[in-house]
């Protein structure tokens, strides 16, 4: 296609009205055509107004599903400029990290979790098997018809997102912004029954604030977290820093 001809495709490109081949050809052209790029940038603002004009209130289920998914979705690190060896403001990510495909982000989040808690990280194959099983469980949990999400604050800083389903008999917990347990102490997670009985779910490092899968919710009404002496306790010995009610 002649250059002048390609240039007239800005409108069709912004409307996503090009087939795959033409789209690729146009993008290649735009990479060395600052005028085209500037025009596309302007026309995109028009397109955004066309989009805003058809805004509709989304169903509540959309919010629940998105919250549940971002809780287990690892974010793409920023692009950095190799010439300066410095990342863009407000980030501490390293250059050149591989982009994660969406389908793998759950597994990636779980990889961090497994590394932090030392779950089944005996050898590579065991770990992969465990991750695949966990990823499947979390995606099944997220699509359960009775999935519920709850966000609660953690005393001392941070928040927890609880995603749970009675029909699946399991829950996933994710934490952000935890300030960390004091020296010689650890966070410990519990499942609590209405009569006050607590069952330990496991220990949690503040630095490993990644999703945790909890199974066996029968008879339990709450998930909670306490600060316990290093190594954990057999039952809670302090006031919880976080309590979230499971869906009834």
């Amino acid at each position: 296609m002649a250059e002048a001809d390609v240039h007239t495709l800005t409108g069709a490109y912004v409307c996503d009205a090009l087939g795959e081949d033409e789209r690729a050809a146009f993008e290649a052209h735009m990479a060395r055509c600052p005028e085209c790029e500037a025009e596309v940038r302007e026309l995109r603002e028009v397109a955004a107004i066309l989009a805003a004009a058809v805004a509709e209130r989304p169903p509540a289920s959309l919010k629940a599903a998105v919250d549940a998914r971002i809780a287990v979705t690892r974010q793409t690190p920023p692009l950095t400029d190799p010439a300066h060896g410095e990342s863009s403001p407000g980030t501490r990510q390293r250059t050149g990290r591989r982009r994660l495909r969406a389908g793998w982000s759950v597994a990636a989040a779980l990889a961090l979790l497994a590394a932090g808690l030392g779950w089944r990280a005996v050898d590579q194959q065991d770990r992969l098997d465990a991750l695949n099983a966990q990823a499947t469980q979390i995606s099944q949990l997220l699509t359960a018809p009775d999935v519920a999400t709850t966000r609660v604050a953690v005393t001392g800083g941070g928040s927890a997102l609880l995603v749970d389903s009675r029909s699946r008999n399991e829950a996933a917990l994710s934490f952000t912004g935890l300030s960390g347990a004091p020296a010689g102490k650890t966070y410990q997670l519990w499942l609590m029954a209405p009569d006050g009985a607590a069952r330990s779910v496991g220990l949690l490092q503040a630095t490993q604030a990644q999703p945790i899968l909890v199974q066996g919710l029968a008879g339990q009404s709450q998930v909670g977290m306490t600060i316990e002496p290093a190594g954990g306790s057999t039952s809670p010995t302090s006031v919880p820093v976080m309590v979230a009610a499971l869906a009834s």
Partner: protein
Amino acid sequence: MSGREFPRAAGSAARSAAESASAARGAESGEDLGGWLRRVSRGEQDAFEHVYAEISGPVYGLATRILRDPAQAEEVAQEVLVEVWRQASRFDPARGSARGWVMTIAHRRAVDRVRAEQAATERQDRSARESARVLPDEDVAEQVEGRLERQRLRHCISGLTELQRESVTLAYYSGYTYQQVAELLGAPLGTVKTRMRDGLARLRDCLGVGR
């Protein structure tokens, strides 16, 4: 605490409610969408509440418009919003507005879904064409600002030639390729792609955006 008591952590429920309320005010809380996106890129889930409040309506509405099927639209909207969370660090304010960035992702996703479907079944061209002509009703308006923008858009669209208007709306709201639009309108390919470009450019000038 010595026993197995497990009382509710003080203040957690109250604070959670306050957080939701502040999220609902997202758009009017001073910080703009680009600012919230920057915070989202640092992993701040609370900031994402503001982003969600601002963009979920347009994203879901656009997906509904293009896909027609509410269930599919919800799926696509979910993918787009998760993508915004995941790729927030890639938003570059030097290359356009935050809303433009989000809606570009949303439109591309919805259109990709439509194309995938078209490959399987031919859609009802006529009904799509008729609905593409109709501009949205006022009842979708939730904010005064949005309503004013919509009124201006309506005014600006009325200033387009029919071929410009049809070319832009069939492509943008129905997800057709320019070849399909040309077929529907019985117009030459070159004319249709030119009308998409000058139609959008005229809207740009009329709306006073992007410059």
